[in-house]
């Protein structure tokens, strides 16, 4: 046999092979001196230490160490010696032949021999493949530059430590970690502790999205940012650049991040090359049966490199189960592996994150959520048919093991359901108790509302003093008026104190079933607590569902947008389809397109462009709307950007006929042409529309300007109507021509166009800031009273001017034509199909 390849030390091959001569036992050769390979041997030795002669090949130059502890080694919490599982003595004591730093290159199954890189040729009776995984390297330019590494073994840790050391010379050094999963975040944490300035680039909007839900991911991101890391979510790497070594990373959106070290931690792939070349059955991993036997009865496989029952694993717990079944099989006990449920913990000091099982929610699944904003705790347990099927814990992971155990044992938790979320000690103690009795038993000075420091005695006194509803209590003694987490307790106190008198009904309806807060409370808290994202609101205000519902998401998106103009980043996923696609969905799933015609005016160029679009896209209908413009029907979502491009080219922008926003400004001909006209109603309408188009509102908003009291523009059934008279302008508000017709209230009369426009802007802003989502001006004014509106907009001059300023400021961010943005390529994925299936391809 000739020496193949090389790299290893000079060998005396003859000596290696003679060892076998007088040993008649079956020879087990293990490829991979990692966690699974060695564990399998340990399990085997524990069952029958003498049965097999064992040889282990390892590609790394080390004895077997605990790979998961590489993170603490990087972070400086452990040294390499601390993480060794089996030292040299263990191999020697058990008569195991260990060959390190010499990977196996080929398996000859017919001859039952393996050949190593250094040229060793070893025969086997049974072969165990435990080659683990290979880090996945994203195929971007520059991926092979020196300084670009992965995070898998000790050599990677050494490279990171060297980079951190080198960085110290020039004041820290920058590292980029690509991938915000478990591995990436542990690498980022370690590098930060080693003094590097770290940026994490994550493709998805949520960190660790495979293990965490949106809420927990947000908490984690906030905490990491607090520790000085820069976390870029939704960021896609375009290239890694540098002359001869890495100098930085460029993102697809053009951002540029300098770095002397790039760690790629985007995922792993089972290491199957060796098995595949040997002709074994390989899917995603090496296919094994319940006894870890591959398609060749003499070859076994275990660990991350295998695929069992369609699953591959990337955590250690399954390896332990696999190794047990494997050793049982090798010693004729045949227990059989049945797959594993896994749980995850992030090993970053001070950050407690745990997840297990399936927490995608859905049918028949019930989410039990506990949020304690003050302590930074988020817990979510998913229950289905009385059993726990998933759990996500952030901030307090003490009960993770308990939930995981209940999950694995598929225990029926119906009896303790109400107490489950409070954890093991609470649930087992109070499982049988009546919650009312528990509250009744509390002492008078027991604190009920932590935020406002209200005791039970104070709450009861308020109730006895006449505060008979939750809202009255919130207004009076302030119990449950802040974070809301004590709402249940306060309601129980109402029930106990009032007995049958307490109907349990709330004076204000909650926003939706996800929260115990009403719209006004949520809005107030968004501003008071400076909350700037949907997950943040859901967390701080104790949402009972992980990511809200179709009612609260759009409302929160609007409230945030309105509260933080220019700062809040609109969440497309929280918008109703019409606002997401900037067109009105029709019953057949096509869309209608309504370009803006300022004040109802148009010209030949616009009409020609519309006519061309109708012909070019074969639109089945074009119609004059009740809002004085043209509506093109039957456009497919894929064609929308092209249609808009054509309309943009003729100077037209979106008419927002689909939005909770300014719709139309209807006008009549006015003094320009009409023999009765008193003012230029058309011109004023155009100015009003130019001022207010593009603004997002609680509901749709319509304006009209009529040139005289004959009111041809129907201004007295509009949200804001202007009726011109000889001496000036009558301003009307709160009209509605819809389901319940409501005639406007007269707000006031002003003398000039300027004033008419200023009052209009101030009124819109008051409506934007104070009405509830999906409440039009008519029901809003019915609720708050027209006198209140008059006081704010007419009587309080300073207040009016401030409202107008806030309106114009927010408008400075919203008057970009959404159609033009889409034409330029924004959100193309919303319009394009993912792919297409044609009969030929599937035949």
């Amino acid at each position, binding site marked *: 046999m000739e020496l193949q390849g090389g790299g290893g030390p000079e060998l005396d091959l003859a000596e290696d092979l003679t060892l076998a001569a007088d040993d008649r036992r079956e020879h087990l050769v293990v490829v991979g001196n990692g966690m699974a390979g060695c564990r399998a041997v340990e399990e085997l030795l524990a069952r029958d230490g003498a049965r097999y002669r064992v040889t282990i090949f390892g590609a790394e130059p080390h004895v077997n160490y605990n790979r998961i502890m590489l993170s603490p080694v990087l972070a400086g919490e452990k040294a390499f010696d601390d993480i060794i599982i089996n030292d040299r003595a263990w191999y020697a004591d058990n008569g195991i032949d260990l060959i390190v730093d010499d990977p196996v290159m080929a398996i000859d199954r017919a001859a039952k021999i393996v050949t190593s890189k250094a040229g060793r040729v070893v025969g086997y009776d049974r072969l165990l493949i435990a080659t683990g995984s290979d880090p996945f390297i994203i195929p971007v330019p520059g991926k092979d530059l020196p300084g670009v590494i992965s995070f898998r073994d000790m050599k990677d840790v050494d490279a990171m430590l060297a980079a951190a050391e080198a960085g110290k010379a020039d004041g820290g050094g920058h590292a980029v970690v690509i991938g915000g999963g478990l591995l990436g975040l542990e690498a980022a944490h370690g590098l930060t502790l080693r003094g590097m300035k770290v940026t994490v680039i994550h*493709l*998805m*909007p*949520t960190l660790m*999205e*495979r293990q965490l*839900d*949106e809420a927990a991911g947000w908490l984690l991101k906030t905490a990491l940012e607090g520790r000085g890391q820069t976390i870029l979510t*939704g960021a*896609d790497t375009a290239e890694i650049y540098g002359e001869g070594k890495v100098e930085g990373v460029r993102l697809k959106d053009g951002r540029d991040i300098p770095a002397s070290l790039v760690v790629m931690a985007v*995922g792993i*792939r089972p290491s199957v090359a060796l098995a595949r070349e040997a002709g074994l059955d390989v899917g*995603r991993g090496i296919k094994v049966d319940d006894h870890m036997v591959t398609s060749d009865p003499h070859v076994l496989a275990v660990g991350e490199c295998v695929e069992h029952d369609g699953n591959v694993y990337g955590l250690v717990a399954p390896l332990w189960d696999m190794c047990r079944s494997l050793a049982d099989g090798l010693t004729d006990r045949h227990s059989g592996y049945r797959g594993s449920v896994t749980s995850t913990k992030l090993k970053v000091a001070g950050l407690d994150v745990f997840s297990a099982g399936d*927490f*995608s*929610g*859905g*049918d028949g*699944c019930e*989410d039990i959520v506990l949020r304690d904003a003050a302590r930074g705790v988020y817990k979510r347990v998913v229950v289905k048919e009385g059993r726990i099927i998933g759990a996500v814990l952030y901030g307090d992971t003490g009960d993770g093991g308990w939930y995981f155990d209940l999950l694995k044992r598929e225990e029926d938790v119906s009896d303790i359901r109400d107490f489950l979320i409070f954890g093991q000690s609470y649930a087992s103690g109070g499982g049988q108790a009546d919650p009312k009795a528990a509250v009744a038993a509390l002492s008078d000075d027991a604190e009920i509302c932590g935020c406002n420091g209200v005791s039970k005695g104070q709450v009861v006194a308020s109730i006895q003093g006449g505060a008979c509803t939750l809202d009255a209590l919130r207004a009076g003694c302030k119990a449950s008026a802040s974070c809301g987490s004590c709402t249940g307790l306060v309601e129980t106190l109402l029930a106990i104190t009032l007995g049958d008198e307490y109907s349990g009904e709330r004076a204000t309806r909650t926003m939706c079933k996800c929260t115990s807060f009403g719209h006004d409370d949520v809005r107030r808290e968004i501003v008071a607590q400076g909350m700037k994202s949907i997950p943040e609101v859901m967390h701080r205000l104790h949402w009972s*569902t*992980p*990511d*809200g*519902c*179709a009612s609260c*998401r*759009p409302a929160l998106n609007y409230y945030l947008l309105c509260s933080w103009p220019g700062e809040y980043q609109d969440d*497309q*996923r*929280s*918008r*109703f*389809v*019409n606002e*997401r*696609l900037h067109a009105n*969905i029709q*019953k*057949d*799933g096509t869309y209608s397109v309504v370009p803006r015609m300022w004040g109802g005016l148009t010209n030949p160029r616009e009409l020609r462009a519309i006519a061309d679009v109708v012909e070019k896209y074969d639109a089945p209908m074009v119609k004059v709307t009740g809002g004085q413009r043209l509506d093109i029907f039957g456009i497919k*979502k894929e064609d929308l950007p092209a249609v808009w491009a054509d309309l943009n080219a003729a100077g037209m922008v979106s008419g927002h006929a689909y939005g909770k926003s300014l719709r139309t400004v209807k006008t009549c001909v006015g003094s320009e042409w009409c023999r009765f006209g008193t003012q230029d109603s058309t011109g004023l309408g155009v100015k009003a529309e130019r001022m207010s188009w593009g603004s997002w509102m609680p509901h749709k908003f319509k304006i009209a300007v009529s040139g005289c009291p004959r009111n041809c523009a129907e201004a007295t059934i509009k949200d804001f109507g202007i009726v011109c008279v000889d001496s000036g302008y009558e301003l009307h508000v709160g009209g509605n021509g819809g389901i319940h017709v409501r005639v406007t209230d007269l707000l006031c009369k002003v003398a000039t166009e300027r004033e008419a426009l200023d009052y209009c802007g101030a009124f819109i802003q008051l409506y934007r800031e104070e009405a509830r989502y999906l409440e039009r001006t008519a029901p809003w004014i019915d609720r708050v009273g027209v006198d209140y509106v008059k006081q704010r907009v007419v009587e309080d001059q300073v207040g009016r001017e401030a409202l107008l300023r806030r309106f114009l400021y927010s408008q400075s961010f919203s008057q970009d034509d959404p159609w033009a943005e889409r034409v330029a390529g924004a959100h193309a*994925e*919303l319009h*394009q*199909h*993912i*792919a*297409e*299936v*044609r*009969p030929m*391809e*599937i035949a």
Partner: protein
Amino acid sequence: MIGNWLDIGPVDQITPGNARTLPVMGGEEIAIFRTLGGEFHALVNKCPHKHGPLSQGIVHGGVVTCPLHNWNISLKTGEALGEDKGCVPVIPLKVDAGRIFLLRSAVMGQMAA
């Protein structure tokens, strides 16, 4: 040999909380969803109520709210939730090595016989 699974491209084509469509020539268009929790599901893109395009609805938890009349449809079973009754076919889907696969026979099953 053609496998049982139809590769429709990398997972990052759908961001969490969104859906994309897959027209099937001579058959029913399919909607592929990615929940905020990162799960993938595929349904025929037709609400059991009046055939609203489910791909255009708001996704929350494992549910999509139909854009036409707000029925809530389970992404896992295709069934209407709550008071509403009806069911839309689910297309078996798997994610492998960062790519989305649909069960070929189920995709074909949506073609007019």
